[in-house]
């Protein structure tokens, strides 16, 4: 995995439905400046910029890195644009880390964003090429059948999804950047909301958010402030139309986890990882990913959720920040997971800090649950 790499700055915007007060450039710059401030640096200290976002159709700007070069201080520097579907935020962090690990640069600014209020993501995701008819509307329409299959296989009771929906929103109340901060959130409230895509209710799905997240990544020699050290990075992809692939627990997710655990020396993720920020856009994806990522045996993930183990005060907190269920600027959602993992091991997560967190997992997935990006960060230098 090459040279050592550390996260030395994290910046986020307050996630919300509509940021009418800033342009797209203003939004990404806000996150970038906060990350630079956290690192005690300015744009002058940055060697290269890597930017990621989900499909360009979401804002109607084609290859927006051209337009955003000025706002991110990239003029005169190398700039790259990553796009790997929903996993893009994670991939953006990994491409940035790769530049450090490969010895190409000393400090890299990575930024990811989505300004969902510029369009309607559900319909932008429902455009299909000619002659490929599809009855699916939005991401929920695509993933609901996979969730139903998970319930059938595991025999999980119907209320598990609502437990996750409540738990993540309770965590969000402790995160000042979170979009959905719902006082008095409880199971009854979730169950009272309309069914969108059986079994996903309104409050079991992620919001549409405007927001950006940025990180300053550094080589060992260029570290400032409090570093979160990168202990492992991995990406995996599998074809969407492969007939025999398991969409409930994709092989690419298992392989990606195995790769990143091997690099970080993790044999038992449940015991060795202190906190995980995992891409859970629909409540049921918590138990599904608990199994896919090896935190629970097959068919047992829902029991871990039900036991409270993944709550902020449980033995393996998942999405202490409130997760994607509470904030979802799509292209940035993966990067937020990676950044929150870094904040935890830096001890800088504020009210949602997991006490004594030393090792954290950041996870993102995308496409038809076929693209995966993960990293392990730690308080200690690897």
């Amino acid at each position, binding site marked *: 995995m090459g040279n050592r790499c550390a996260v030395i700055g994290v910046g986020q915007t307050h996630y919300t439905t509509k940021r009418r007060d800033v342009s797209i450039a203003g939004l990404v710059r806000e996150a970038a400046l906060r990350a630079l401030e956290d690192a005690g640096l300015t744009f002058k200290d940055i060697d290269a910029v890597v930017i990621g976002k989900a499909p360009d159709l979401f804002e109607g700007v084609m290859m927006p*890195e051209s337009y955003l*070069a000025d706002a991110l201080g990239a*003029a*005169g520097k190398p700039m790259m644009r*990553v796009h790997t579907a929903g996993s893009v935020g994670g991939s953006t962090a990994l491409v940035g880390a790769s530049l450090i*690990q490969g010895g190409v640069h000393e400090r890299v600014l990575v930024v990811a964003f989505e300004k969902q209020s510029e369009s309607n993501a559900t319909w932008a995701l429902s455009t299909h090429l000619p002659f490929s008819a599809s009855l699916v509307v939005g991401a929920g329409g695509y993933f609901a059948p996979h969730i139903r299959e998970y319930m059938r296989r595991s025999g999980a009771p119907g209320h598990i999804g609502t437990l996750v929906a409540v738990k993540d929103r309770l965590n969000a109340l402790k995160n000042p950047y979170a979009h959905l901060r719902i006082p008095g959130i409880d199971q009854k409230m979730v169950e009272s909301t309309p069914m969108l895509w059986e079994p996903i209710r309104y409050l079991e799905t992620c919001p549409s958010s405007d927001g950006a997240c940025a990180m300053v990544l550094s080589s060992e020699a260029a570290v400032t402030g409090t570093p979160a050290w990168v202990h492992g990075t991995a990406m995996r*992809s599998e074809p969407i139309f492969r007939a025999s692939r398991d969409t409930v627990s994709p092989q690419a997710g298992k392989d990606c986890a195995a790769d990143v655990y091997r690099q970080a020396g993790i044999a038992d993720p449940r015991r060795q990882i202190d906190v995980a920020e995992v891409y859970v856009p629909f409540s049921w994806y918590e138990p599904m990913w608990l199994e896919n990522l090896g935190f629970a045996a097959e068919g047992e993930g829902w029991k871990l959720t039900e036991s409270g183990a993944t709550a902020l005060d449980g033995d393996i907190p998942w999405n202490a920040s409130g997760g994607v269920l509470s904030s979802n600027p799509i292209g940035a959602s993966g990067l937020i997971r990676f950044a929150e993992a870094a904040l935890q091991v830096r001890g800088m997560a504020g009210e949602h800090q997991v006490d004594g967190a030393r090792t954290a997992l950041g996870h993102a997935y995308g496409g038809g649950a076929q693209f995966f990006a993960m990293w392990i960060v730690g308080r200690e230098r690897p």
Partner: protein
Amino acid sequence: MRDVAIVAFAQTRHTDHDTGLTEPELIAPVINEIKERTGLRRFGFTCSGSCDYLAGAPFSFVSALDALAAWPPISESHVEMDGAWALYEAWVRLQHGDIDSALVYGFGKSSLGDLRTIMTLQLDPYYLAPLGLDQLSYAALQANAVGADRAELDEIVRRSRADGRGNPYALDLPEPDGEDFAVQPLKKTDVPPITDGAAAIVLATGDLATRLCATPAYIRGIAHRTEPHYLGLRDLSGSASAADAARAAGVGKAPVEVAELHAQFPHEEIILRRALELGGGTLINPSGGPLAANPVMATGLIRIGEAARHIHDGRARRTVAHAASGPCLQQNLVTVLEA
């Protein structure tokens, strides 16, 4: 830096119209060809470049993955940029030292829409795009700023088309004859052809490179730079970012025998020759360049492949490839290849 070589290059026979192939169908033969040629079925890393706006649907690269037979799952990433930047990402990944091969590809079907209008959407959505400034209009602004001799521009188009006719993968375009303007001072024949196509490259390091290719094209330097987006903030008669990237890649360290430039318009070739400080001894775009085939999102990657081919064939020992992105050569990537 670790030595990384281009060991194989494959491209489609580009077309000036939609042949009815889907993107995976366009890519699959190129991927299969390069797998057969190298004998590699699996690669340490895979990276591609494409743009959703060409197909007008999100995630054009998602179904492209089906063309790879990516099973078991592969370590893979994608840039929403020309495939040349995918190659850069793969080169960086190979610097880590734990893998020794990478597959890179780029593809685009610009026949599906009105490219001239679509490219407008690449501009600042608040201050520039609403003006309706389209691809040819801003290119014309730059052509005007360069103020090149018409005869020199005509000769570039004539030479590019003639070379393209000699290149089985490029389009068969006639000798330029009309005097009609597309947007003054750009003539219709100065405009690159609408093209569908794809290309793939295999990178390898160490012993694997020499095992797969008798004459690997080693990447001796590779660098890219961007510059301000707003046309008014730049001196359009030159390209500071191309010059910076060329210096960082070490173009000037030794004579360059062949340069493949991502010059979509003849005046861009003049700007780039100056920026890269290429002398009269350098053969420019012997493939015909983008004026003879311009499969958007693969055009830059093809420049790297064509520059490598001269070394693979033993016709040259030091070549340069250039790729561009953004309006009026906003971002430039330069690669120096040596035998």
